[in-house]
């Protein structure tokens, strides 16, 4: 194996002899000096080796390096060429970081939580096969890396296992994760739909939180700390955003502004994060989960379960049917929808009725309003029974 100290000269050697030596140097200069220099004579005053060394010293982890490289490429023109260079640099530099990792590993053996990694693998699988996988990844990524990455290709370069573990370490309980996700969702377009994505993420991470028995004990008096965490985070994000904007402005090579995707960031990002009024508790005090089985049975007995889910989904997340096809309900469960509804409205049957009726008549593709009305009636009757038992 190559010794760490030999790796940088070897990368420098390779790059300086490559076809794209000039672009490689431009890119390395850009990421190590953190600005785009258009005058190549200035860049040429530096050696590859010193730039790479600087890059290594300023990025304590491989993840930092990865983020920096691919963020930078993203601001540039001729992405394919620069992406290839970035990939090469990343792969070669990884050798140094891995060497260091091995050194530190031998000192403190890995904590070896087999159970945890098994759960993470399961969560990752669930996310990978989810119909809304790209959006989930974007939101998870934002909560983890504290900036919004719109390019799914950049996110895909990261190991989702690691991202999930990082997220779990960053937010030690479901409450904190919830708050962090809510504050991100509050800053993006399609908030209603993203609040569903946030619910999905919390639902998945709950596999981890549930098995963590220490949570219950530390949970109660953590609110102040949480607020601080979120404040710090929102400052972070706005700072990063400004940085990103300045990079883009000073970018000479830029031709096409990055396409304004539907999910793109609203520019007012994180200036006015309002704490959301949604109740945090997983289960409401009056809500008995055992009875939820009876409620579900009654709904299924008296109406079409799929139609019920569709109406509940649009009503709870207040998404217009023209915005999102109902096939999305395949990714959530009737249980979760019912619990979410009780979290939103408690025992306020009038509001529940109003919202469900509104959705029933909103022209959902392929669903007759008359059939929808039958479903709403059945759901309301079942809920009334349920309230009596609680």
């Amino acid at each position, binding site marked *: 194996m190559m010794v760490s100290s030999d790796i940088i000269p070897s990368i420098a050697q390779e790059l300086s002899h490559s076809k794209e030596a000039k672009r490689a140097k431009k890119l390395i200069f850009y990421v190590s000096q953190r600005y785009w220099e258009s005058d190549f004579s200035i860049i040429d005053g530096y050696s590859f080796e010193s730039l790479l060394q600087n890059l290594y010293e300023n990025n304590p982890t491989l993840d930092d390096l990865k983020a920096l490289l691919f963020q930078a490429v993203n601001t540039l023109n001729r992405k394919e060429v620069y992406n290839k260079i970035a990939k090469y640099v990343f792969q070669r530099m990884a050798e140094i970081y891995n060497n260091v990792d091995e050194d530190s590993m031998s000192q403190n053996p890995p904590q070896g939580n087999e159970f945890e990694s098994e759960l993470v693998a399961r969560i990752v699988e669930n996310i990978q096969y989810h119909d809304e996988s790209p959006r989930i990844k974007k939101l998870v990524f934002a909560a983890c890396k504290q900036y919004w990455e719109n390019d799914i290709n950049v996110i895909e370069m990261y190991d989702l296992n690691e991202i999930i573990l990082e997220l779990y370490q960053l937010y030690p309980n479901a409450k904190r994760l919830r708050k962090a996700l809510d504050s991100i969702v509050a800053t993006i377009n399609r908030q209603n739909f993203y609040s569903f994505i946030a619910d999905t993420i919390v639902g998945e991470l709950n596999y981890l939180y549930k*098995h963590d028995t220490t949570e219950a004990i530390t949970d109660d008096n953590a609110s102040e700390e949480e607020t601080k965490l979120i404040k710090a985070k929102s400052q972070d994000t706005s700072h990063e955003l400004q940085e990103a904007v300045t990079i883009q402005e000073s970018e000479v090579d830029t031709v096409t502004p990055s396409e304004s995707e539907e999910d793109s960031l609203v520019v007012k990002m994180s200036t006015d994060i309002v704490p959301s009024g949604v109740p945090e508790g997983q289960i409401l005090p009056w809500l008995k989960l055992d009875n939820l089985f009876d409620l579900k*049975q009654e709904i*299924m007995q008296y109406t079409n*379960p799929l*139609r019920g889910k569709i109406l509940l989904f649009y009503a709870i997340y207040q998404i217009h049917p023209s915005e999102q096809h109902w096939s999305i309900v*395949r990714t959530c*469960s009737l249980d979760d929808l019912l619990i979410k509804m009780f979290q939103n409205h408690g025992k306020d049957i009038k509001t529940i009725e109003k919202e469900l009726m509104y959705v029933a008549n909103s022209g959902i593709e392929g669903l007759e309003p008359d059939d929808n009305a039958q479903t709403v009636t059945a759901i309301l009757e079942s809920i009334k029974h349920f309230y009596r038992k609680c």
Partner: protein
Amino acid sequence: MEVNEFIQRYTSGENDFSGVMLAGVDLVGADLIGIILQDSNLSRANFTFAYLSRANLSRANLMESNFSGANLNQASLDGANLHRSEFHGAILQKADMRSVQMSLANLLDANLMEVDFRSADLSNANLKGACLRGSNMRQEKRGKPTNLKGANLDKADLKNVDLQGADLTRASLVGANLADVNLRNANLTGADLTGANLKGASLTDIKLEGAKLIGANLSNVKMERGNLTDADLTMANLESATMPDAKLVRTNLIQANLNFARLNRVDLSRANLYGAIMRNASLMDVFFARTNLTSADLSDSNLIGADLSSANITGVNFNGSIMPDGQVYHK
């Protein structure tokens, strides 16, 4: 037969379309109540929100067909091939699903009440949140057991279901409702029953080797001769469980509740009962070989004939219990 011809003949009153070949047909929302489609080929057909109550689809090829939100109340699907089919939120109440091939099918949140699933193959199917109350999955004499290997039954409602002899190897039943279920002689090796409710279930001769039952409710279960070797029952509730002659070798029972449980002649060798509560438990002739009983509460239990010679009994509360030699323990 062409689709148009089929619809024309059906709307003009014809009902029997046995053996028809209509693979990939689109019948979204169609009213096909009582139609006879036995032995037909309808693979990849789309029946989303279709009305098929009392329809006869026996032995039909329905591979990868889509029945999302369809109403199949009292329909006959026995012997049909439903591999990878979609029944998301569908109604199958009282349907005949005997011997169906349904591996990898999606039955998320489906109404499966009173369905006859005997000898069905539901291996690796998704039954998350489905309601199966009153359904029949019982293994008949010389019949094939219902195959639920690797199936996902998280939060499914199986209250009162007859699952005698069913194969649930490595199935996931997290948070499922299994109250009063019949799981006699069923195979749940490696299954995940974390947080499941099994209150009052019949679990005689059940195989739960290596299964996860963390925080599960097993109060009042009958589990004679159950095999729980290497199972994880951390913080499980086993109050008043009857489980003589069960095998609990290396079983994890940390902080489990075993008050009033009947564990006569149980093999607890190398099991971990750290901090378990076993007040008034019947522990006659129990084999505690190298069992960890640290900080367990065995007060008022009956230990006549039990072998405690190699158990770790640091900090155990034996107050008022009848010790192996018949003497009552007093502080």
